């Protein structure tokens, strides 16, 4: 049981990180559909770096940087060249799939050491909870720290309020004198960093070797999680755990030989995403205030 919960947590962390990053980007009005691509880049960046430097912690840094690199490509085109965000995001995912396939080809068949668990002194000795909550790896702690940080950042800090203002009405934010484009650049790059770390987590903890397209749609599920969480940070944790649970449930089902064909079980996370989106969207259309109003709209004003 304990092992099961640990696996569920590990499965949900990439989703959690990627969704959190995307939430910040979307709060600033940028809809980046390239999450899947940024995660793939993070994964391949981490794998390559760990094979080279043989220290899993450098993998986290490399993942973050790869994700940010992809996010800056996205930013140049959507923010500076004012291209359509949906199409550019798709382009980013397609681009990254090709790039990582190419960069990952020499890595095929090589295995990397996994990210070590860090036990927190005394707390990890608490029965059951201890080993679940306080015997995790660095990225797991980091992701919780990021969620707590951005919850406060968005709600109480001045910068957070400016960020939301930019996402809700970029024209007014611009007239008051806030640098809309610069803020969106930062937000998108933060999103890329989180997605990159989330991607890096996949080879660092879940499957320690490269395979083409190894994120398997997690980036898209992360995008759906942001909607599911109605742009409220802590709800991402709940959503990510549910999806982690569903993913693991179908694996357990396959292992225990449930009388359902494995392909139908594998569909569960994707179908669950559609169901979750449907349930939330019905409610969102009645209460529109949570959706950033400028989401996906390019900002044309000069600075």
């Amino acid at each position: 049981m304990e092992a099961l919960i640990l696996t569920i947590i590990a499965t949900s962390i990439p989703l959690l990180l990627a969704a959190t990053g995307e939430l910040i980007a979307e709060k600033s009005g940028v809809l980046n559909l390239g999450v899947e691509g940024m995660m793939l880049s993070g994964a391949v960046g981490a794998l390559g770096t760990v094979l080279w430097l043989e220290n899993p912690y450098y993998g986290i840094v490399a993942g973050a940087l790869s994700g940010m690199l992809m996010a800056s490509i996205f930013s140049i085109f959507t923010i500076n060249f004012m291209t359509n965000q949906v199409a550019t995001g798709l382009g980013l995912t397609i681009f990254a799939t090709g790039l990582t396939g190419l960069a990952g080809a020499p890595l095929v068949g090589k295995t990397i050491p996994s990210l070590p668990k860090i036990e927190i002194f005394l707390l990890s000795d608490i029965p059951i909870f201890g080993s679940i909550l306080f015997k995790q790896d660095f990225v797991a702690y980091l992701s919780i720290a990021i969620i707590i940080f951005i919850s406060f950042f968005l709600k109480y800090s001045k910068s957070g309020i400016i960020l939301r203002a930019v996402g809700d009405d970029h024209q007014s934010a611009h007239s008051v004198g806030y640098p809309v484009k610069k803020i969106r650049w930062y937000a998108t790059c933060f999103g890329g960093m989180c997605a990159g770390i989330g991607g890096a987590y996949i080879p660092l903890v879940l499957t320690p070797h490269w395979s083409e397209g190894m994120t398997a749609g997690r980036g898209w599920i992360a995008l759906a999680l942001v909607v599911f969480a109605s742009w409220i940070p802590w709800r991402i944790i709940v959503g990510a755990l549910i999806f982690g649970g569903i993913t693991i449930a179908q694996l357990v089902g396959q292992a225990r030989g449930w009388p359902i064909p494995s392909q139908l079980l594998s569909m569960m996370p994707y179908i669950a995403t559609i169901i979750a989106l449907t349930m939330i969207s019905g409610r969102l259309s009645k209460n529109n205030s949570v959706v950033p109003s400028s989401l996906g709209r390019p900002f044309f004003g000069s600075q």
Partner: protein
Amino acid sequence: MITFVPREKISKNWIFIAPILSIVFTIFFGLLIFTFLGYNPIETLYQIFVSPFSRIDRISDILVKACPLIIIGTGLMLCFKSNVWNIGAEGQFIMGALLAGFIALSFPNIETKFFLLITLITGFIGGALWAFIPAILKTKLNVNEILVSLMLVYVAMLFIDFIVRGPLRDPMSFGFPLSKPYPEGALINKIPFPGIGFLGQLHYGILFVVLLIPVAWIFVNKTLGGFKINVLGSAPQAAKFAGFSQNSITLTVLLLSGGLAGVAGVIEVSANIGQLQPEVSFGYGFTAIIVAFLGRLNPLGILFAGIIIATVKLGADNAQMTMGIPKVVTGLFEGILLFFLLTGETLQKYKIKWSERKYKWKL
């Protein structure tokens, strides 16, 4: 520093210059990346862009490969024109092929080619039904069609895998996940050329493209439906005032694009494979997104775009065989190409202006 100043009129020149410049830039950046990753750039360039033209049967294979891309791309054009983002054509392709395959395998002895009409229509229905899910969720409950259509791609891939390994598996397939071969009536034949025989894999499915392009052109440019789609995409407010129902347009374009993707699936399987197998698509549905954009959301443009992208796809196959470059590399070119095409769209509407402060880089 660079700033953009709105143009008074959309620049006609850029409509033609942008795709050409985009291709040039894409090749340039592609080469940079290849060099950086340690592949021989000239050899790669030759394999990807020149080798597909080196033999006549290879040229006809370009047309074969372009066929599904053009059909799907034409459907996606309708969606993208009206700002509906169907990115699940891959799934609609699979479901079209699967439903038609089910019908084809239900009549194992049929020989008349008129049966193809039935499989094509079934394929259309299969694809349209799969697109109906995001369509109905979008119009009734305002669920994001991007995510739903994409999730359904994964579901469709797993579903055909299940069907081919389970219910429709040929007991004589020696353990391979294959269905029984299609009956003669459900197969699309290769085109015989007197004196030459066959040209590569060139098949009668091409005729559908020949028919589709003018029909699509007339629909987009000469009918009320096409007009509504154009207005909704370029001026949603005007469409609202004119009383065009956004929901019915969304529903129509999604069903049409899903249906066309389904037809593409039927043609691909009936002409090139002849039976169902777990993988029938090879990413046509995703590539067609690029084709629709490269073709400037215009049927004639999509015809050319399909041929260009098919060339790159075949070239990448060659590069994989001769140089061991993974063929997903086409994604690299497609992504960069899309970035520059979209930038071209901005340049249609905006002029570049160099302002005084040249040395200060500012975001």
